[in-house]
């Protein structure tokens, strides 16, 4: 393998990794705040991808409108799922919530088959062209994906760490009861977390479609599981962890493929998950703090 090929594969890896990271952020934020592995999260991306497809292929809307539509619908769907399916279960055992999330995932996938049809929908690439850096050919799609993801992550870091709403989210994720005693509204803060997570999924769906140009009813499940692995790898509940986990998984897949084992890249991802869970179950950045008495 030549050096330029390796670089090209690394960039590919960062591109897929960006999408994983955006989706992993949604997983991690929701887990952080209500301790729920929201398995319906991947399917939100699927719905977002169909929105882009229909807006462009059927209604010939400009891409910008399609993107706004995808993000808007994803956000709305995420918050609706939270309100309808998860809020009534807030004081129920965590297992009921988990099973409900799996149920919502099935509902969305099968609902999509009914509404959009079971076949794959292909569309023209959103972004075309590429640029040569030395002897490495980099597509504009890769550049846009990586840059957009990085900007979103910086924005998210700012929102979570510097704004009042973001600090409230961190307070709720640490101690719901104490947060309420500060006057923080649980309903509003949790809904906002779902809204942000789902908006990130919406952006992820656009970037995914830019890379693969196909939408199908089950596309969210593998993508969702990979993002989940990324979140666990980075330390679930940790925002920088989700980013690092996403990029790690993306680059790992690209390197495994570059080494000639394309068929094994999913297996490699799950193997890494197993190894991490064995040796550092809290992931790269997950940690527990001791309460002093």
């Amino acid at each position, binding site marked *: 393998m030549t050096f330029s090929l390796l670089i090209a594969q690394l960039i590919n890896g960062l591109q897929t990794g960006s999408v994983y990271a955006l989706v992993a952020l949604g997983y991690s934020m929701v887990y952080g705040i209500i301790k729920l592995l929201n398995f319906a999260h991947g399917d939100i991306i699927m719905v977002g991808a169909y929105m882009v497809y229909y807006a462009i292929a059927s209604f010939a809307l400009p891409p910008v409108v399609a993107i706004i539509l995808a993000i808007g619908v994803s956000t709305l769907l995420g918050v609706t799922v939270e309100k309808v399916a998860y809020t009534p279960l807030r004081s129920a055992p965590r297992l009921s919530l988990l099973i409900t999330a799996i149920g919502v995932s099935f509902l969305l996938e099968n609902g999509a088959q009914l509404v959009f049809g079971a076949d794959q929908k292909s569309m023209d690439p959103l972004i075309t062209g590429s640029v040569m850096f030395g002897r490495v050919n980099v597509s504009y799609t890769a550049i846009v994906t990586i840059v957009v993801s990085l900007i979103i992550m910086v924005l998210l870091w700012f929102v979570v760490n510097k704004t*009042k709403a973001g*600090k*409230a989210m*961190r*307070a709720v994720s*640490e*101690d719901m*009861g*104490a*947060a*309420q*005693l*500060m*006057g*923080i*509204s*649980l309903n509003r803060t949790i809904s906002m977390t779902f809204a942000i997570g789902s908006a990130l999924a919406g952006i992820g769906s656009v970037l995914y479609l830019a890379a693969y140009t196909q939408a199908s009813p089950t596309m969210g499940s593998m993508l969702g599981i990979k993002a989940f692995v990324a979140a666990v790898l980075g330390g679930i509940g940790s925002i920088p962890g989700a980013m690092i986990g996403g990029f790690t998984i993306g680059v790992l897949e690209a390197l495994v493929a570059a080494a000639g084992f394309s068929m094994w890249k999913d297996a490699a991802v799950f193997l890494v998950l197993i190894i991490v869970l064995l040796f550092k179950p809290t992931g790269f950045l997950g940690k527990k*703090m*001791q*309460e*002093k*008495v």
Partner: protein
Amino acid sequence: MSRILDVNEINVFYGAIHAIKDISFYVDEGEIVTLIGANGAGKSTTLNTISGLLRSKTGDIKFLDSSIAKTSPNKIVSQGLVMVPEGRRIFLGLTVEENLEMGAYTRPKSEIRSSMEQVYELFPRLKERRTQIGGTLSGGEQQMLAMGRALMAKPKLMMLDEPSMGLAPLLVDLIFEIIADLHKAGSTILLVEQNAQAALSIADRAYVLETGKIVKTGRGSDLISDPDIKKAYLGA
């Protein structure tokens, strides 16, 4: 003196367990009232019910003449009824300053700075550590932070649940001194304590709880010399 809190015949259950049985009491403006009693007597349950984290099956809770028995916990806080929970429950992952900001969640941004300075004046240790995260503070500092955080809400009534729990004797004295100072400065306080001696010595009035019922009530200074109380709670 006007009535600030009026708790009327509340009954609280944990599943089948009847934890609070027909409890009624009141707090007037400017008072320190204490609820004392052994472990499991229902002191914390009472406070958690007033702050809306638990619900009473019967009766009513009035704060400043309006019922809060069905109000959500965050709305109760914005009305000026603030609790420092048992075990402090500061946000360990947030800095000292962010913890204080969360305490002022219901207040306009423009007033936060000056309230924070007041809290730092009361607890200079917190000012030194304002950029540290809560998890790195000692137990005593965490208690100061929990109280400072509650003060940030400018409470009309502050409820303290076991502020002396797990603290070294010297720190217990300091915390009670601060409570007495807050009282002198005009704060109204409802204090729950196992340390009956310390609580009774600063309280205007006290209620004694046993297995979910109020069994005795009176002035703090009277109860401290009451033979029954001495025997049961003061170890004399």
